[in-house]
């Protein structure tokens, strides 16, 4: 792949020897029956630039399950502006909407990228934008165009400009990597010869918390993505794990065993002001803040088997959330606050499921048998999780309604522990 080759070339220039990065490839494995037929016409002059912007736009939208791409070959003349789109031509190809655009030099080495999204059924212009960017920004611009189209068609924010963090294991070596949501451009955050787990993005997108075993026991670190500066924020006697950020990025919930047994504490993001917030005689762990910051969802065996509970931070009141089955763990709240995704074990199979607070309905989204570590996209529409295929750890994604399924694989590498990053401000 071109991106991987470029990255390797850069490393050869900068370093003596480096093993290949775990480049993720995304395969769509199911769903998309109700997809909107969309034609993405190559932009004017696009071929004169090294990166195919419309290829990325189309791949983003198709991967989301929202659209099915319609062939654009053989349409002459090619439309580049909204007013040049002939609805009859595209209706004949079963398209409901068309994306057109152009790229032209804007001086100073920058390029003006324009696009328009046209509804060829209603024959209206849905949206159009112009960006003035450097060639280094082409990939990001393609994702922004896909976001704009997605948002216009669905009303929900697009997640094509987001990033995902994940852990890889190649032989004895572990890495925490951050890549674009489409798997491109993986960058190393941490490399270690001891396990890494539980990467968690700060909601402001500047830091990642994670658990590292480099001291031969689990310790929670917070690391700045831009500087690489990191701090061991929880390194108490015993085990320190399960970091989760408050919505304002200022605090962390963590699981500590320093006072006997795995219990939940909240601390400032720099590790100061450690406060115990829950108390039970057994295991409390996997605490995560609800989007309003007022409560923690967490896993506890206080009722005899691991189940999910919610604790109000102000009042301390705890209520049980899951009631089906004997193993419900790894709570992840949806951004709209209406429910959660979690992991359940059913007949020995570990599966990703969702629970709606209002209806109390549990929907099982995956088959397992070894699905774990769900992470919800910031628009609430996709869930990435860890799975296995061919005896190897992979990542997979499923839409929150279960309709669209994807697999993300990296060659010769175990991949696990995904964490979806926040929406990025332009």
């Amino acid at each position, binding site marked *: 792949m071109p991106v991987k080759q470029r990255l390797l070339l850069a490393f050869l220039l900068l370093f003596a020897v480096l093993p290949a990065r775990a480049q993720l490839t995304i395969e769509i494995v199911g769903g998309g029956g109700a997809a909107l037929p969309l034609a993405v016409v190559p932009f004017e002059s696009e071929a004169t630039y090294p990166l195919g912007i419309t290829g990325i736009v189309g791949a983003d939208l198709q991967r989301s399950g929202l659209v099915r791409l319609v062939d654009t070959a053989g349409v002459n003349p090619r439309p580049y502006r909204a007013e040049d789109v002939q609805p009859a031509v595209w209706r004949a190809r079963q398209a409901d909407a068309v994306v057109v655009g152009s790229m032209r030099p804007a001086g100073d080495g920058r390029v003006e990228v324009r696009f328009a999204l046209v509804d060829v059924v209603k024959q209206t212009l849905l949206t159009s934008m112009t960006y003035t960017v450097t060639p*280094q920004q082409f990939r990001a611009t393609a994702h922004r165009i896909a976001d704009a189209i997605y948002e216009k068609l669905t009303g929900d924010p697009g997640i094509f400009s987001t990033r995902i963090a994940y852990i890889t294991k190649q032989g004895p070596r572990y890495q925490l990597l951050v890549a674009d949501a489409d798997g491109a451009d993986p960058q190393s955050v941490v490399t270690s010869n001891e396990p890494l787990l539980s990467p968690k993005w700060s909601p402001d997108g500047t830091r990642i918390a994670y658990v590292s*075993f480099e001291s031969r026991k689990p310790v929670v670190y917070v690391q700045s993505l831009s500087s690489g500066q990191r701090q061991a924020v929880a390194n108490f006697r015993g085990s320190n794990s*399960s970091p989760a950020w408050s919505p304002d990025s200022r605090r962390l919930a963590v699981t500590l065993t320093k006072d006997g047994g795995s219990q939940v504490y909240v601390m400032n993001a720099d590790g100061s002001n450690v406060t115990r917030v829950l108390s039970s005689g057994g295991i409390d762990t996997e605490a995560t803040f609800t989007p309003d910051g007022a409560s923690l969802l967490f896993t506890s065996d206080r009722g005899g088997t691991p189940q999910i509970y919610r604790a109000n931070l102000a009042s301390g009141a705890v209520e049980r959330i899951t009631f089906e089955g004997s193993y419900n763990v790894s709570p992840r709240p949806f951004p709209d606050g209406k429910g959660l995704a979690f992991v359940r074990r059913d007949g020995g199979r570990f599966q990703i499921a969702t629970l709606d607070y209002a209806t109390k309905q549990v929907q099982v989204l995956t088959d397992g048998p070894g699905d774990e570590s769900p992470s919800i996209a910031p628009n609430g529409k996709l869930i990435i999780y860890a799975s296995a295929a061919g005896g190897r750890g992979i990542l997979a994604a499923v839409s929150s309604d279960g309709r669209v399924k994807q697999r993300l694989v990296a060659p010769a590498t175990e991949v696990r522990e995904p964490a979806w990053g926040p929406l990025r401000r332009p």
Partner: protein
Amino acid sequence: MRKILFAVFIAAAMAGCSTTPTTETGAPIDDKSGAAASGATTGSASGDRITGVTTGSGAGSGVPAELRDPNSILSKRSVYFDFDSFVVREEFKPLVEAHAKYLQRNRNAKMTVQGNTDERGSREYNIALGQKRADAVKRMMVLLGATETQVETVSFGKEKPKNAGHDETSWAENRRDDILYAGE
């Protein structure tokens, strides 16, 4: 040009040998973003570059021969558990007692009990389960003569399996506490 040293980790539960620690910060890698849309605010490329870190694990210095004598029960360091259980089985009580008595005789000696689980289930929940197993052995040692401060308990959860297989035999080998003395 920077040289990178990669330590190869030797997965021996007892020997616990590790290699020279290496710590290094990866080079900043450009992130291509911050496109300016007309009518919208201009993005900034700063704050998008990622700088990475490489970590290593520490090396040990050695322990008294008594603890390494293959004829002594003190060289036996592993306690195995049933599925979903934290109960120390009868067959391991002599081993736990022997280590407890050693700690009682040697008040300066310290150990860590490392708890492990099989590969099934949530990683974080398994850290907690492994912790429960380590705490069970510690509790027994304290009852039999060790002091609280001589025994630290940590959990590896399912992160460091001794057996990489996916069947009941492999899982049974991984449901395990390992005892390591300070300096190993």
